[in-house]
């Protein structure tokens, strides 16, 4: 039959993933929009909060780390000025925020939408993907803010290396999507996964160069003769990604292959494992939720 829609047998077929997602693109968009609308519907300032909220957070965190803790960063020429410090911290913060919120909300997305999944048949991927999409909207707003702050504080526009930014973002997006699909599905079977992800994210916040630079880690570790740990440190793919963002935006450098090799590999790995695992378990999700 020509209008044969979507039967349960399809959910487990990998080759149908792309057609399913294309078919569900409107739904995906609606779900993202739904969340954003719902969030600001009854606020007088409405959508403005989507901008103000990250702005305030940026101001506070930048103030705390650069003024209160007096963290030292390596600027373009010697020690970073306070403006440079703010931009460096913000870059790390926005990249991390996207990763952390997307992963946390994706992990709990299937259990949160239990009512829907146990009743309606639709491509399950839409659910974790929509949460990544929501985080993406916030990321876009944050990036625009960063650009404004950058221009204001440094008195110049980012250099031509900025064309590399989408590539780094793509790596991060693939990574977070893959992990999100994997953890959301695992969390449906074992709710422990959600707690483990949250705990790891808390740890990851400190294990990622957000309010410090990797050079600091390198110096401190080699002072103690623990150089091997520095390699281990980069097992956190976000360490490489955040460093790459900073190199592009702030230092006008094209990130090296050594820096990006592991993040790229881990992203591809996460997406492959995540997709296969998700597709395998999608048809019976309603049984375990």
């Amino acid at each position: 039959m020509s209008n044969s829609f979507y039967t349960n047998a399809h959910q487990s077929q990998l080759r149908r993933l792309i057609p399913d997602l294309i078919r569900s693109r409107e739904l995906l968009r609606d779900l993202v929009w739904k969340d954003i609308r719902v969030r600001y519907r009854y606020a007088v300032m409405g959508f403005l909060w989507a901008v103000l909220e990250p702005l305030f957070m940026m101001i506070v965190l930048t103030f705390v780390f650069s003024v209160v803790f007096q963290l030292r960063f390596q600027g373009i020429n010697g020690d970073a000025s306070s403006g440079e410090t703010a931009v460096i911290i913000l870059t790390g913060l926005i990249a991390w925020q996207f990763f952390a919120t997307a992963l946390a909300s994706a992990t709990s997305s299937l259990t949160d939408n239990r009512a829907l999944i146990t009743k309606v048949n639709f491509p399950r991927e839409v659910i974790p993907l929509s949460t990544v999409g929501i985080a993406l909207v916030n990321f876009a707003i944050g990036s625009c803010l960063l650009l404004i702050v950058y221009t204001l504080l440094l008195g110049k526009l980012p250099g031509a290396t900025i064309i590399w930014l989408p590539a780094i973002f793509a790596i991060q997006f693939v990574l977070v999507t893959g992990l999100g699909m994997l953890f959301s599905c695992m969390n449906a079977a074992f709710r422990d996964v959600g707690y483990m992800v949250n705990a790891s994210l808390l740890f990851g916040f400190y294990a990622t160069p957000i309010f410090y630079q990797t050079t600091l880690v390198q110096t401190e570790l080699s002072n103690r003769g623990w150089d091997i740990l520095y390699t281990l440190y980069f097992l956190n793919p976000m360490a490489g990604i955040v460093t790459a963002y900073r190199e592009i935006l702030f230092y006008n450098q094209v990130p090296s292959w050594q820096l990006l090799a592991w993040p790229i590999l881990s992203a591809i790995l996460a997406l492959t494992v995540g997709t296969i695992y998700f597709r395998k378990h999608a048809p019976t999700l309603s049984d375990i939720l």
Partner: protein
Amino acid sequence: MDPVIEIDQVTKTYRARTGTRVLLGKGGLAEKISGKKHDTFHALENVSFTVDPGESLGIIGANGSGKSTLLKLIAGVTVPSQGTINVRGRVASLLELGAGFHPMLTGRENVYLNAGILGMRHKQVDAVFDEIVEFSGIGRFIDQPVDTYSSGMYVRIAFSVAAYTNPDIFLIDEVLSVGDEEFQRRCRRRIGELMDQGKTVVFVSHDLGIVNTLCERVILLSQGKMLLRETTSKAIDFYLRQIGEEKGLCTMVHGPMEAIVCNGRISIFYNEEEVTSASGLQFQVFYMGHWQNSQDADWSITDKTETSCTAEGILAKVGITLVWKITLENGKFHWDLALRNEQSVSINKYEINMFFPTRFNQWMYDDTNGMFQDILPDDTNYLAATSPELLFETASLLANDEGLCAAIGLETENQRPMCRASWHNTDFMTGCRALRIEESPMDGVIAFEPGTHTLINMALDPTLSREEVQNKLGIDSSRYTIESGPLRSRFDRGKIRLTHDGVQLTSMLHFYTSMLVNNVWYDSINFRWDQIEPIDRGFRVAGTSRRIPITQIWELTSTDNGLHIDIFLDIDEKIDIQEYHSSILLSPDYTQWKTDHESGSFPTIDTSSNDWSHVSTKYEPGQSAIATGPSLPTLTFSGKFQDEMLPHTILNTNFQQASRVLQALRLPTHSMFTLDTGRHLYMNVDIMTSYEND
């Protein structure tokens, strides 16, 4: 044509789950690693069937028999553990009513979102959006957030989306009881439309009546196994006999009669033919804004013999236990209904509903009778064939053909004076004749002190032939009937029903008397009337009160132009009567009234009137009270005491009784009449009808 649903040897196994998943212990990770098998249960076992395009299939079975699992499999929400399912076409199911609705989004946004989840594109929704809004009746609220909607509106918009997503296969799961009655009707019509369009409908319900009319074929599930795939009537028959929770199920046989009590519903068979219809005999209580049906109760059979049983059903929400005693005896089915409560309970109303097949097309009770209209597809409401009357003692149904069971006789013995009965046609979906016996007081309070309360004792006789019913009716009624020209008066337990050329003039209480003793009114209908003896041109009946030492004797005789009634009182011991009246309740089609002193038109009886209201204002003694109405005979009602004229008053009843009242009163000159033992003449009443004044 290829089937749209193919289910081939499908088994669905669930892992038994004891609350949480643990690492160690049963079903935990440790056992998984060590390769131990965990407990499983089969929700469905080796089920195979196909559904053709345009077919309507019902799935019935007890709770936990796998109905919902089967529907989920067809909907594609889950997949079978073994076997294959092929579903061709888009499935929309009412499983998912409002799934994905977000309270903070507007109706419009939710429609698009919900339709999107059901697999529709924006463009497709655009095309039917107006229809969805129209059908839901939401109107301008469509742009309001859904959390401002009433629960009814919420369900309506949700159903509308599901109903207009243009599915090829429509799954319906017990949700037709949503929304108000008006909306339910629209839902059923919409389902009918979908079926007419050749859509496939799969329907799961406990309501065998609806399954019976909606579905062509039925699948019967029991403990995950498919017992039967059959035509609807055969499957329902089988279901009634075989399935059901064991402890609430009881079958009794007595000769050709068979009765099945199945968890709050009774079905009766005679010569292997079902006398009742699929919905059977049921009882329901209206309590705290909801109907609680006997089928919702938790039933157990407490006492059982070959031909009788006692079934007790606990309606926990109301705090009452239904006690049904069912006996098959002398070719009759006896049903004694009682309820038991440990604490005082107030319910709003209750109903006994008895459903019969449509081949019974003539109803009778007492000496009135009529034909049922045909039930048409447009009938989405119950249609009353008769207005509620005080409960009759006998009633019958006659079939239009000479089937095995040509007539059903019903006898009732009422323990509750306010019980009323009426014949109905049900809606098209249910497709039955229904006898409804109800008690629903205006103030909506029926209080039961702790204890056991008999509601009604009923006997049903399927062995009668048409002639027997007709003859029995003739003999019984003729003894109590007086004809004087076109006026026919029939005495019936303390009331007299009047017809003129076959037109019924009186209603509800008809002609009756009432006396006030110790500030309590005693109506003639509550006396025990059991003696009748013929006298010249009429008969004499006597009725004894259960509570006061008075026997009323009515002598009914025919006169040249009407009915004459002499009322005597036999007093056993000296008694004071404060007031006494005879009244006649007339059909509300009477519009004008007249007494010796004034005249006027009857005001319409408004819905809020809980009490009888006086229409006339003067109470001087007069000759008579007269009522007239378009195309009705003029009725003259005249009460006298020997030759003394009495005051006549005109009243309207309350809305529920909806009648005009002509009344003759005996008011004492002092505070009361004191009557010594012996026989006293109390009132002489003349009732005359004519068309002369027109």
